[in-house]
C-alpha cells in the first residue's frame, strides 16, 4: 500500500491578517506558519494510523510551495511518514497546484491520496476533487472516518443531518475532516528522525493557471453593542425590527 498525503502551509490561526500590493497579496511579514490543520490532524494522522496498522505501508507527503514550506514539511515528517516531496512553486491557483500533485501522484502510483477538506486560509476545497479528476480516480469528500476492509475503502462522510457510508475500490482520493483522527504531538524521537528523512525538491510541471486573485477584503468591523435601558422596551423592539431586522 502506498499513501500520499497533501500538506499545505497556512498561517497560524492567531495570525494577524493584512494585505499588501493594493489588497491583492496576503502580507506575510511576521506571520507564523503551520501545517494546514485539516491536512495535519486528520489526513496525515489517519494515514500514520494506517501505517501503524500495516507497517509495510509506504507513506509519502507532498507539498506545493517555496523553500519557506520546509519547516512545516519537517514537522509533518516528525509526526510520521517516510519521505516528502516539495514541488518548488509559489503558484496559488488551485488547478495549478492540483496539476502538480497529480503529476507526483501519477509517478508514485499511490493507492490512496489524502487531502484536508480545505485549507484554513483560502478555503478552496477544490484540490481533492481536481486531483481525482486529473488522475481519473474516484473521489470522496469530507470524510469523517476511513477504514480498509478486504482491500476496499469504507468511508463515512458527513451529510446534512446525518452520515453516509461509501465503499470504493483503490486507488482513491479522499478529503478529510474532523473525526478522522485525533491531533497528535510529534515526540522527540520523531523530531530527531525527521532531519534524516528524505525531502525531495522537484520543479513544477507545465500547467495552466486558471484563476488569479483580483482583491482581498477584510470583513467589516463589528459594530459595538448597543445598550437599551430596561425601561424602554419600545426602543429595543424598534432596533430589532429596523436595524437588526430579526423580527
Amino acid at each position, binding site marked *: 500500500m502506498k499513501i500520499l498525503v497533501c500538506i499545505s502551509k497556512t498561517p497560524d490561526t492567531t495570525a494577524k491578517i493584512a494585505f499588501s500590493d493594493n489588497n491583492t497579496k496576503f502580507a506575510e511579514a511576521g506571520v507564523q506558519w503551520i501545517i494546514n490543520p485539516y491536512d495535519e490532524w486528520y489526513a496525515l494522522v489517519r494515514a500514520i494510523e494506517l501505517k501503524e496498522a500495516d507497517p509495510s505501508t509506504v507513506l509519502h507527503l507532498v507539498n506545493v510551495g517555496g523553500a519557506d514550506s520546509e519547516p512545516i514539511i519537517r514537522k509533518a515528517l516528525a509526526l510520521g511518514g517516510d519521505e516528502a516531496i516539495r514541488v518548488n512553486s509559489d503558484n496559488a491557483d488551485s488547478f495549478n497546484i492540483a496539476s502538480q500533485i497529480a503529476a507526483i501522484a501519477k509517478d508514485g502510483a499511490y493507492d490512496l491520496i489524502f487531502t484536508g477538506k480545505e485549507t484554513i486560509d483560502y478555503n478552496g476545497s477544490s484540490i481533492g476533487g481536481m486531483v481525482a479528476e486529473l488522475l481519473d480516480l474516484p473521489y470522496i469528500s469530507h470524510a469523517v472516518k476511513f477504514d480498509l476492509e478486504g482491500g476496499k475503502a469504507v468511508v463515512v462522510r458527513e451529510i446534512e443531518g446525518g452520515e453516509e457510508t461509501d465503499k470504493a475500490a483503490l486507488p482513491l482520493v479522499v478529503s478529510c475532516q474532523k473525526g478522522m483522527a485525533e491531533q497528535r*504531538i510529534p*515526540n*522527540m524521537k520523531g523530531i*530527531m528522525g525527521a532531519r534524516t528523512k528524505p525531502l525531495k525538491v522537484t520543479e513544477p510541471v507545465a500547467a495552466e493557471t486558471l484563476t488569479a486573485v483580483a482583491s482581498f477584503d477584510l470583513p467589516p468591523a463589528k459594530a459595538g453593542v448597543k445598550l437599551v435601558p430596561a425601561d424602554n422596551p419600545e426602543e429595543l423592539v424598534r432596533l430589532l425590527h429596523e436595524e437588526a431586522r430579526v423580527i
Partner: protein
Amino acid sequence: MSTTTSTTANLLKGGEWLIKESSAFDTYTPEDFNEEQKMVKEMCLQFLNSEVLPVIDRIDKMEEGLMPSLMVKAGEQGLLGASIPEELNGLGKDFITSTLVNEGLGGGYSFSVAVAAHTGIGTLPILYFGTEEQKQKYIPKLATGEWKGAYGLTEPNSGSDALGAKSTAVLSEDGKHYILNGQKCWITNGGFADVYTVFAKVDGDKFTGFIVERGFEGFTQGPEEHKMGIKGSSTVQLYFQDCKVPVENLLGEVGKGHIIAFNILNIGRLKLCAAALGGAKMALTTTVEYANTREQFKTAIANFGAIKHKLAEGAIRIWVGESALYRTSKWIDDKEVELQAAGKPFNEALLGAAEEFAIECAILKVDGSEVLDFIVDEGVQIHGGNGFSDEYMISRAYRDSRINRIYEGTNEINRLLTVDMMLKRAMKGKLDLMGPAMKVSKELMSIPDFGSEDEGAFAAELKTIVNMKKAILMTAGAAVQKLMMSLSNEQEILMNIADMAIQVFHAESALLRVMKLAYKGEEAVSIQIDIMRCYLNDAVDKVNKAGKEAINAFADGDEQRMMLLGLKRFTKAAPFNSKDARRRIADKLIAENKYFL
C-alpha cells in the same frame, strides 16, 4: 554530543567575560536555534496546552495519580530523556536542546516543577556519579518515566548549609548494608517517587550520597506539605529509621557526597532560569491579553502609559535574560565537546563544563527567578482585583513563582557564590582579575578619557559595557585589598558586587545579541535595539547605585572620593528617552497580543 558545530578557539573561560571582550559573531543567541530545536520547543508548548493546562486545577488539588500519569506521558513524548545518552534509553541531545525542553515546559506550573526535579536532581546524580550497574538499573526507567526520581539533601536544620546535615549512615556488621538514620525535608516528587538520591554522613562526618528505593526497610515519608504555591507539586518529608540501604547503592565515594550535591546544582540553576523564563513568557502573554481586553474609562487598559511601561519592562527582562541564558548554554555545550574530545568520559565532561561556568549558572538562577517574580507581580497588578482571584491564571503564576528565589540555592547564597567563585578563581590564577583591576585603578589617577564618540555601530553601548566592567573591577578590587579576609563577613558588599556583575553580564549578552542580529542584516530589529538600550540605560544606574553603596561601606577619605568620581565616570551614559522606547516595545506586544520575540 553537541549537534551544532562550533569552534572552541574563542571559548571564554568561566568569569572571563568580565575581563575580556566578547565577539558578537561568536556569541550564541536564540536566533541560532536549528530547525529541530525550534520543533522541540514548540512540541513542549503543545504538550502543555493539550495535556497539562487543561487539568491544571486538578493537578493543584493533587488528584491521586494524575501527576505521575502525566510524567509517564511526558516520558512517552521523550521529554524526560533529552539529556540521557541513547544507550540508556534517552535521546542524547545537546545541552541547548535539553535546556529548551526546560524552557518549553516552564509554563506548566507544578508540572514543570515535577519534571524539572525528576530530570535534574532526580536523575542526574545517578547518571553522572553512578556505577555502570547503577546506571543500567535506574536510568532507563527514569528516562521513560516508568520510575520517578527525587533528591533528599535539605534537612530541618540544614538548608543553605547543606553540609551541616545530621543524617547518618553506618556500615552494618556484615558489611552488606548502610544503616541510614535521619530526616529530609522539602522533597519535591517525594510523595510518588520510586528512587531517591539521599545524603547522609558515614561515621558521623563523611558526607555521602546513597540511592534509596521506595520500599527499602526503614524508609517512610510524611504527609504532603501545604504550600503557598506549586500546590500540585508533591512535597514531603522523608524519614529513615535504621533504613537498610544495600552497599551497592552507595553513590560515588564515601565522603565525596558534596561533589555530587554541589555539581548537580550548577546545572539545576541554569535549568531553573530556563524554566522561569518559559513561565515568564506565558505569564506576560496572559497579561498582555488581559490588558488588551479589559476596558476602563472606555478604552483598553493596554492603552495607558503606566500599563505599557510594565508590559514593556516584562518583555525587556525576558529577552535580556534569554540572551544570557543561551549564551551560557552554548559555552557549556562547547566546553562539554572540548572535554570529551580531550578524552573525558561523558559524565565528567558535562559536569566539568557546568563547573567551569558555575559563576554564570548562579547569575542566571538569580536573574531568571527575579524576572519571573517581577512579571507575575506586575501581571497581578495589571489584572487588578481579578488578579487576586483564583479564577485567573496569573494568580497561580504569582503563587508558583515565589519558590524560585528560594530553592536551588537561595538568591542570597547564589549572589554570595557569584563573587566568592570569582575571587577564588582569581586566587587560583584561573581568572586574572588583579591585572585588570590594577589597570583600572591606574586609570583613576590619570586624566579622564573624553574619547571620541560613536565610532561604528553600537560603539557607545560597547563603551558603556567596558566602563561598567571597570566599575566592577575597581569596586571588587578595592574591597578585596581593603578588607582582605574579612570581606566574607561583609555580605552586604558582596551582594552589591554580585548585583553589578548580574547587570553587566546581562546587558552585555543583550548587546551582543543585538549586534549579531544587526550584522546578519536581520530586518526589523528596531524593537530589539530598544530593548537593549532600555536595559543598558537602567543597568548603568543600578551599577552606579550598587557601586556607591559598596564603596561608601569600605572606603573613606581621598580613596573614597577618587573611587566615587571613577564610578561616576564609568557609569556615564548619554541621555535616552526610555519612555518612548518602552512605548514602542509595548505597542508591538499589544498589537501581537502576546510575548512575540
